[in-house]
């Protein structure tokens, strides 16, 4: 069974992440490519494309930006967009487009640094607390839950404000420490469910060392969740960074999209000088949307019901239209007869009140 066949199987019967032993003895290049299967869908590719665009902008800002971010053109103050300044100028005659291009760097560096740190913490804490059992596991789980509930932004504001000139690394670290908990929690749940699968038991029976069981047997089955928690943390970190910059906790020398909004707000750009404040906010939203799209793609890979839902419903409707009321449900094992439209609400008998049990609880 290869990864790609699993990804292509429309059967929604697989609850949770695809759990299976890591395939061995195959072409290593194929195996490497297969680990990107979660990104092989329209949503993820669109998201990654937008993300790639911003990364290119950040890498080549020196070439792309028409002006320096702080170059002042005193002949053009608060000018609306023109050919000389495509997105207009600030109150000091600085080019808004150039600031936006250079600001991409700060945003992406902090976002990814925070994402990496948070993901490492989440994997270490989550997988450990899921694999071991007993008091240690409970303690780590309680720690995760506490970090989940603590309001992050006030804490970040307070910590960052204690420093006169917080470095990018410090900001990333603080954003990471307040943002890892969600991933840690999901990873713990998934590890606990993997721990009792047959292939892990078999590995343990073989006497494989713990590090090998975790690194070789379990981690390949956790990649989708790790990727999704990484993307989620990057999104949160970007929002956190721009918010901190906007309220002025981060020194303004640290150029990013939030800083542009901070300057705009401080210098009375609202509401008339729209070219000054609209693009930066849109960039944040577009980058955030791109990251969310990547995550949707991963979600659909992990939960095949989400992927097939639209197509199935459409197919069912089409079938109903053409062949009357009897519709076979391709997804469920039972074949159901659906009355459409329902002619009667039916007498409220005892079975109606017995509430069905829900999906597997997420806790």
């Amino acid at each position, binding site marked *: 069974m290869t990864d790609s066949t699993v990804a292509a199987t429309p059967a*929604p019967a697989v609850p949770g992440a695809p759990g299976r032993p890591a395939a061995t003895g195959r072409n290593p290049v194929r195996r490497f490519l297969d680990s990107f299967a979660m990104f092989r869908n329209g949503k993820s590719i669109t998201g990654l494309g937008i993300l790639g665009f911003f990364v290119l902008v950040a890498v080549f800002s020196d070439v792309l930006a028409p002006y320096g971010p702080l170059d002042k053109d005193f002949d053009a103050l608060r000018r609306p967009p023109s050919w000389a300044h495509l997105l207009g100028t600030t109150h000091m005659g600085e080019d808004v487009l150039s600031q936006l291009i250079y600001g991409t760097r700060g945003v992406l560096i902090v976002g990814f640094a925070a994402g990496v740190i948070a993901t490492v913490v989440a994997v270490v804490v989550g997988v450990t607390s899921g694999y071991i059992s007993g008091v240690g596991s409970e303690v780590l789980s*309680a720690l995760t839950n*506490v970090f989940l*509930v*603590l*309001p*992050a*932004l*006030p804490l970040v*504001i*307070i*910590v960052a*404000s*204690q420093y006169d000139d917080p470095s990018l690394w410090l900001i990333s670290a603080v954003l990471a420490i307040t943002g890892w908990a969600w991933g840690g929690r999901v990873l713990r749940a998934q590890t606990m469910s993997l721990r009792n699968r047959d292939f892990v038991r078999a590995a343990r029976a073989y006497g494989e060392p713990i590090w090998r069981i975790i690194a070789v047997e379990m981690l390949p089955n956790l990649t989708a969740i790790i990727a999704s928690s990484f993307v989620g943390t990057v999104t*949160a970190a970007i*929002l*956190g960074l*721009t*918010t901190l910059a*906007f*309220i002025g906790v981060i020194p303004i020398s640290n150029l990013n999209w939030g800083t542009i*909004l901070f300057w705009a*707000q401080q210098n009375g750009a*609202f*509401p008339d000088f729209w070219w000054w*404040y609209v693009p*930066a*906010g849109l960039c*944040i*939203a577009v*980058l*955030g*949307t791109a990251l969310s799209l990547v995550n949707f793609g991963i979600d659909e890979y992990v*939960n095949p*019901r989400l992927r097939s*839902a*639209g*197509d199935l*419903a*459409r197919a069912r*409707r089409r079938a109903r239209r053409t062949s009357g009321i009897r519709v076979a*449900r391709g*997804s*469920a094992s*039972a074949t*159901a*007869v*659906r*009355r459409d439209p*329902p002619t009667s*609400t*039916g007498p409220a008998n005892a079975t109606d009140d017995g*509430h*069905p*049990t*829900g*999906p597997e*609880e*997420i*806790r």
Partner: protein
Amino acid sequence: MRFLLNRAGFYLLTAWAAITINFFLPRMMKGDPVSAYLLKNQGRVSPEAIDSLKVLFGLDESRPLWLQYVDYLRLLVQGDLGRSFSKGLAPVADVIATALPWTVGLVGIATVLSFVLGTITGAVIGWRRGSRADYVVPFATFFSTVPYFWMGLIIIAVFASTLGWFPASHAYDKGADPGLTFQFIGDVIRHGTLPAITIIISSLGGWILGMRNMMITVLDEDYVTVAQAKGLSSRRVLFDYAARNAVLPQLSSFALALGFIVGGTLVMELVFSYPGVGKLLLDATTAKDYPLMQGLFLVITLAVLVANILADLAYAALDPRTRQMGV
């Protein structure tokens, strides 16, 4: 019962963690702005106030750490959070008490409204999966990633500055006479409309998406098929069978997202100059008013915990399994 005890233990643990973080934060600070401030204002601060500040900020270094901790807890139990530097040395607890109702009212109402609206919309969209309703999804995604403060600025620019429909800032008119009169309440509602709309627009998308995804998963369950096969009305299957089960994880994530929402709304208060806790925190940050910042962090965390408890109670009410013994 076990569920409730479990949760109670968790809340106690979290409250203790917040209190302890609050204890260590000023002790990790480099430099000592608090003692510098006290030195500058000697004679103007009462000896008792100095004592409590010393305990709260670890200036009392002759005492061992654990004794400092005990003193700190004792002060907290008495409700003494120190004195605010920027508010004329008024007790921090009093300063926060004037701001808290504004935030709880605005953020509370707006968040609950957004959650209810988003969950119902998400349930309907999930139910009509594969139809034109799916076009809502990209918009919901986009709006759920827009920063609160930027959305607030845009809304002010459009509805307050350009159209002039609602006031752009503050919680009531400067000349208004605070009291339980219709005029004053109307004034407060008028001022609260734009901030509330900002919160709803920025957070609605997340609820819609979460509920839609849960609905799609639940709709494939056999009991939904059975309910439809029995000929129950769509409405009944949608709300009593599918949505009721799909809403449970949604409630859990509601509780967990609260900390995040609170963070976003705090900054939104700055944009609207709303006299709530967030504005106070940001003012305290600019003024380097450490006692006020510490007190605010504690109060915000406790408020989030209380909201979590409410979400838990709602969960228990909706899910009979949590009320059973031994589950």
